[in-house]
């Protein structure tokens, strides 16, 4: 059982480190590189560096509020029944 936990923990850490390095390269290093270097084909245009985090944040907030709302509705229904 602890092997599964450690595998999930390792996966989470690797995902977070890769996201951090990719985003750091994208925002800080790539704008300083010349426009005809080959690196630019590995990175989307810089506007997407704003759109994707904002979109992810909005999606996270809406999912959280949906979850909280559904839990509140369920508890009210249970109270009315009892």
């Amino acid at each position, binding site marked *: 059982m602890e092997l599964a936990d450690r595998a*999930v923990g390792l996966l989470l*850490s690797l995902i977070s*480190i890769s996201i951090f390095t990719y985003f750091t390269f994208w925002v800080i290093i790539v704008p300083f590189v010349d426009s005809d270097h080959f690196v630019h084909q590995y990175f989307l245009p810089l506007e997407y560096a704003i759109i994707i*985090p904002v979109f992810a944040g909005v999606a996270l907030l809406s999912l959280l509020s949906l979850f909280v709302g559904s839990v509140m509705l369920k508890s009210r229904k249970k109270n009315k029944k009892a």
Partner: protein
Amino acid sequence: MKHIFKIISLLAAISAFWVGLLQASIIPRTHTWLLPIYLVVSLGCYGLLMVGVGLMQFPTCPQEAVLLQQDIAEAKGFLKDKGVDVGSD
């Protein structure tokens, strides 16, 4: 209340620093505009990293688990003798 004031003052200090960077133009402007989003994303990444590291280092204590199961069985038997309903078996 004090904790909220601490957080608000920290946020105010960071935004003042950011506006100062915007005015002073030491760093190119596009970088300065992207700085808050970069900080938020890196904070989220740091939280995820801490969760992953904590998961990896969490001790499971298998002997304690066995002892705990024995304690639970003993307590259930004791309470059932005394007439308390503990049933979820």
